[in-house]
């Protein structure tokens, strides 16, 4: 009950998190990688690293009309010093020229080369967006379907809609983290990041549904049924009215309480796996792990402290509105 009693505080915290996240994303923006914009990425590693300025000069000389490019010092998986060179989309001849000149700087070797045409990048961006939108649509429909007949005092569509509100919160947090990482460390958004977001999406929905499932169960257990029969055009119809035996807030509050241990334990095991991935897995998946950790923490917070308080707040708002205009609303058959 603690969370429902103090729901205003928890919702306020969530609102602050959301606003700060949006602010960060809007002001810092996202550093979009070549997966989506098109371009080339060359990773070259050296046993004895040359000067960054020398490398830049060599690159500029190697390819004519190169335009803007960036060189970032890093380490490859073997712990050797390496450089990540980002340029525009390179042709095969340009690639050869670039490779030869950077390798010549000091016994370097090319660990990785990626070149993506602008069309593929654009298409990938569109597809990622469409996929996310389609997933959101299917979730709202499924939740509304699975919780049909929950009826009192809010409809199953409310649960579906709140699942999505919570989901947006959970996705905003890792995206905000990514824009900070991009700003501070120059980390770029790539396909792996989109996958991390999709995993967060799945985690968030799953977490919220478990809580709502308990709300549903407790609602069924704490209601009385009244059936009234009436005849309309020769057909016998039966109206069923449910009355809750406990206040709605209390039912939801108990549900949150009862699922608390599960919510925390599952997020702990997931975080354990992610921490192992972050520290022991390769550099390639480090950002993936970090983004997911942010998403899982946000998801756990939101399923406990946002989803249920929001349902209760909405139910109270509906009740208040119904009380204010009792004469206007027509008698309803539920």
């Amino acid at each position, binding site marked *: 009950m603690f969370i429902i009693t103090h729901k205003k505080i928890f919702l306020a915290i969530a609102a602050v998190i959301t606003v700060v996240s949006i602010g960060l994303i809007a002001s810092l923006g996202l550093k979009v990688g070549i997966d989506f914009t098109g371009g080339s990425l060359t990773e070259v590693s050296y046993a004895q690293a040359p000067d960054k300025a020398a490398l830049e000069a060599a690159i500029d000389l190697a390819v004519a009309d190169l335009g803007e490019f960036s060189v970032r010092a890093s380490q490859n998986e073997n712990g050797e010093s390496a450089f990540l060179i980002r340029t525009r989309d390179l042709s095969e001849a340009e690639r050869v020229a670039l490779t030869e000149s950077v390798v010549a700087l000091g016994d370097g070797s090319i*660990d990785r080369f990626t070149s993506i045409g602008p069309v593929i990048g654009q298409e990938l961006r569109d597809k990622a967006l469409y996929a996310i939108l389609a997933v959101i649509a299917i979730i709202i429909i499924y939740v509304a379907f699975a919780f049909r007949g929950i009826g009192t005092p809010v409809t199953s569509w409310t649960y579906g809609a709140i699942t999505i509100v919570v989901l947006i919160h959970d996705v905003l947090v890792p995206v905000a983290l990514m824009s900070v990482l991009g700003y501070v460390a120059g980390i770029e958004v790539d396909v*792996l990041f989109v996958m991390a977001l999709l995993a967060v999406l799945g985690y968030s*929905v799953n977490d919220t549904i478990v809580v709502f499932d308990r709300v549903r169960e407790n609602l069924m257990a704490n209601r009385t049924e009244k059936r009234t029969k009436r005849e309309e055009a020769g057909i016998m119809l039966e109206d069923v009215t449910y009355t809750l035996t406990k206040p709605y807030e209390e039912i939801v509050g108990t549900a949150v309480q009862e699922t608390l241990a599960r919510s925390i*334990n599952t997020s*702990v095991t997931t975080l354990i*796996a992610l921490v192992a991935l972050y520290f022991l897995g390769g550099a390639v998946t480090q950002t993936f792990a970090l983004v997911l950790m942010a998403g899982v923490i946000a998801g756990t917070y939101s399923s406990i402290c946002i989803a249920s308080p929001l349902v209760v707040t909405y139910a109270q708002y509906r009740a208040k509105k119904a009380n204010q205009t009792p004469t206007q609303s027509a008698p309803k058959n539920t």
Partner: protein
Amino acid sequence: MSENTTPENAGTQAFLRTFRAIVVVMVVAGIAFWVYQNGTQPESENPFKLGLDLAGGSHLVYEADVSKIDPSEVPELMNVLRDVIENRVNVFGVSEPIVQVESSSFVTDEPIERLVVELPGVTDVSQAVAEIGRTPLLEFKLYDEELAAQQDTLQNLNSLTESGTSSAVIGNVTINGEAISEELPFRDTGLTGRYLETAALEFAGGQSGQLSNEPLVSVRFTPVGAELFEEITRNNVNRQLGIFLDGELLSAPNINEPIAGGTAIISGGFTAEEARELAQNLSFGALPVPIELQSTQTIGASLGAEVLGKGMIAGVIGLSLVILFMVLWYRIQGLVAGVALLSYVTIMMALFQIIPVTLTAAGLAGFVLSLGMAVDANVLVFERMKEEFNRGVSSREAARTGFTRAWSAIRDGNITSLLSAIILFWFGTSLVKGFALVFGIGVIISMLTALVVTRTLLVTLPDTHKSAKNFMSFVLGNGLEK
């Protein structure tokens, strides 16, 4: 599932429970052994399939220009293209190259046809690009007198204006709504390298009009191609048939009579060496449509091995820590969850080998993540079980009720995850598809292991009550409880 508690019956039930538990553990152990055998034996039939980012290699994406092709013919042409390139790639002796067609009509208005070529182990991308680039594009086109006349007129006009005072150049003149192309005045016949069966080097005899012993390339068409060739030559006697190689006009012999039999001679002032090479390249197959390299990706082999090794360590440590946490918190139930989690890992690895799923760095990361999430169904059940157990129900009955009560949450949570996975699989590009597949299978298997392994083992544990205050009742508790 109520049990009769007569003594004989109870004995049978206990035996059955133990028997089931043993069978489940044996089956999982059997699968684990099979996975180990397959994964470590050098010549196993179902080894793990590693993606390019783990094995090292090159990934090339070509775009095919199908703008001149009838849309209904595109899929077949792309298949021809794939076979041709596959033949080419097989020349490298690369183990298991992947050549596949990717259409992208889903999102974009204009369908784009791509050919994705994956070459594991090939880190010298220039060599690969050069080798694939050697695939010739052979086209037979008819001389178009009308277009030639139009181009002549345009040229005359231009030369007039150039010689005059005005410096304006007439361009983009259209006749009957069609722009006059600046290309050579030939139009497509539909006869291309796709209808080629074989090609061979020949030397012309000293006939009139030809240099003696001039190197030539003779090509033999497929039956369909032969028919097409005969039809074209029959309808266009006394016109010129241009033979184009990679867009360049090689020769434009006059069609003297309809040619049946399905062979044609390509001459173009070749040296013997050039002709031999062309014949060889043509016999690997010729491109049915022009292609252009759009994106390349190379990953060094040592880098891939490093990523794979680190990913596996992260997986093993992550798995151990998750099991440790479960045992510390849920005690004996945690141990059962640990067995279920190991079963999950085993079955997933077996499926990776059987399907087979290509493992990538992203897939590996997703799998490590799933280790943490897979215990969720167990956690849900244990929490419900605890409620019942604390209420005074016997532990075995509590386990059964726990499963019944937790089912709706497990079901709804997993169905939404599964729906998301299906959508991703539909929409996604190959990389996302792999992730969606692993994610989707993971959801199903984690649910199955919780329902089968966890359940079977839990009901096999000795029955006790919370009030018993003995060892069993302690290990069946959880968290901070005594």
